[in-house]
């Protein structure tokens, strides 16, 4: 009842989540004096890029009513493949990055064909590619950790894409790129065929088929976008962290999917916002970076993140229920 008085705009998930981000920032700033530093912003930014990129990509399968579980292990796999070419084969960084991106697109394509054409359930199909990429990553790197060129080494220019150092000041340049990409993909989702049909598949696949949409093609495209962004995320990850370890990556996808759902992508498909996803990921990143500052042990950090996720899924379900009552 009281809700009617609040303007509808303020009830949009993006706005609510943005307020949550500000509230979290405020909370951590008050709770920990060490948090109130420029370097903390740098750290949060660093750790957010790869999750944001994965989340932008995975929003598309989520909106079709599916999911992509292969992005986490995929990220590590693409990064190991690219890194191996640089470190052991002497490839220039740029060429290795292209290989990583192609690798991501191919895995996305395989996911898309399995789901869109062969009709496998998305959960199952991407769980399989998740296993496959995990194994492939270990094979690509011959089972050993790979360090992309570190600052100062030749070929380390790609690290400046995400963090520019001018004099003694470090600028989190990566945020500009992820923001631009989020705006671009927000536009793609809402104003292009690919995006509109992605939403159409998620809200009513039968109707989409009957209205003559090439559902197979657009279903595949949703997973290709997801794979491509997982590959972009792999470059961001390699640029921020010293070493990429084979066998890791499982669990990254849950942070990305969690961020997307917090940001208003419907857990059942058919609706979502990429700008919301961007903001939603920052809730996860703030929790991940902030909770250690207030002295919370690692296992508790995961519990808090899980509870926050349940909360945002509940908001989604309650909203749906209200809409159906109207």
């Amino acid at each position: 009842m009281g809700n009617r008085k609040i303007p509808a705009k303020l009830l949009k998930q993006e706005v609510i989540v943005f307020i949550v981000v500000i509230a979290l920032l405020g909370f951590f700033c008050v709770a920990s004096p060490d948090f109130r530093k420029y370097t903390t912003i740098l750290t949060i930014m660093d750790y957010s890029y790869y999750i944001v990129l994965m989340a932008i990509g995975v929003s598309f399968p989520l909106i079709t009513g599916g999911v992509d579980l292969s992005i986490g292990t995929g990220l590590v796999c693409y990064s190991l493949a690219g890194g191996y070419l640089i470190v052991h084969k002497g490839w220039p960084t740029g060429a290795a990055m292209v290989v990583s991106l192609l690798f991501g697109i191919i895995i996305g394509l395989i996911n898309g064909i399995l789901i869109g054409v062969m009709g496998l359930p998305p959960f199952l199909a991407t769980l399989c590619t998740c296993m496959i990429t995990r194994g492939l990553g270990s094979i690509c790197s011959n089972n050993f950790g790979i360090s992309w060129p570190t600052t100062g080494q030749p070929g380390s220019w790609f690290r400046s894409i995400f963090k520019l150092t001018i004099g003694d000041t470090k600028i989190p340049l990566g945020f500009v790129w992820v923001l631009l990409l989020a705006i671009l993909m927000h536009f793609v989702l809402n104003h292009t065929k690919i995006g509109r049909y992605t939403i159409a598949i998620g809200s009513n696949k039968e109707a989409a088929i009957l209205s003559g949409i090439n559902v197979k093609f657009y279903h595949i495209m949703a997973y290709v976008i997801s794979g491509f962004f997982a590959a972009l995320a792999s470059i961001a990850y390699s640029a921020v962290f010293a070493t990429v370890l084979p066998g890791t990556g499982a669990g990254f996808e849950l942070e990305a999917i969690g961020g997307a759902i917090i940001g208003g992508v419907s857990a059942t498909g058919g609706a979502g916002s990429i700008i919301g996803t961007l903001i939603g990921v920052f809730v996860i990143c703030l929790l991940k970076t902030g909770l250690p500052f207030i002295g919370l042990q690692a296992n508790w950090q995961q519990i808090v993140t899980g509870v926050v996720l349940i909360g945002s899924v509940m908001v989604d379900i309650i909203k749906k229920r209200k809409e159906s009552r109207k």
Partner: protein
Amino acid sequence: MKKKVLSTILSAAMVATLLVGCGGQAASTTTSEPAPAKTEEAAAPAASTETTEAGGELNFKIVVKSFQSSYWQAAVTGVNQAAEELGVKVECNGPNAESDIADQVNMLTNYINGSPDGIGLAACDQSACLDALQMAKDAGIPVVCFDSGCPDAPEGSVLSTIATDNYGAGATAADNLYAALKDSIASASAPVRIGEVNQESTSESITQRGLGFIDRFTELATADGKKVAVVGNEFYVNGAKDKGDEASADIIIEVAVPAQTTVELCATEASAIMNKSDVLGIFGSNQVAAEGILSANENLGKLGTEAGTTILAAGFDAGTVIKQAIKDGKMFGAVTQSPLAMGKTTVQTLYKIANGETVSDIATDGYWYDNSNMDAADIAPNLYD
């Protein structure tokens, strides 16, 4: 409608996995089944050494903790060298990550079922392998533990343990870090903080290093009349000889353990500690933890070699990233072990057992290295890439 209900349940299940606090692990148990098979294929050409010698009928199996760090690469190289010298057949395998404890037990059990002439084991978890070790004993297969021991192993199952004195190696890091920080600690007017990042609290090697560092640092500081308190991860706080009282302490040792053994989670924990203004030094107890500290420093830029004005970081093991950081003066120094010799000795010991010789435990040392002695003849061979 049905579909929506199903997908709601699925996403709820996903959220539930996160809630239980094991998002990663849950995924890894489901994904790991086919993965080890692939790992084996990948590792086999590099790891197993076939021999042509007639006497080379002996067949040993080695289970390492993972292939995550170059430390294990060096150990596997040592294993292969010894296998070639002795003319025996050796196969190496290990789980994807050092936290995949169940996978490792599985591999060990499979090897036991194949009745080899001996097994070399670097256990991820000191208690998870106990049942398997009993099996090996019942099947009459000798086991040699290396890198990490299994102190509670059934009597007679583990014939020899070849490991760095990890407690001593942790203490070596404390010795060197304390010596460098002594003056700053003595002149400090307010309590100071020493950080420690351990990748987990389950394996013997990591926990012993962590505790060795804490206990020696406490001992040295107490001898100089300072009060020390240990805070943070419960395992290490409760394991420390003297956990002290935080309110009245002059030195606070803060211990952090991430939820999973990944560089990025170690980095998050490290930056939370390094952001505090009273930190003088920090210790990372293996390659992953030390690299986590260096990753955190990318933004903070607080590490250096000037006691008092910068944070002095002590690492563990080697690898290109750590070696470069020590050369550049970002990391103060590190303790290295000799994985190559450890791998070699493991195979040699298994060979001795197969030939009926009696063997005993072998402790190998940890060596401190920094910018000044990196190229020394007794240090350089242990600094693998």
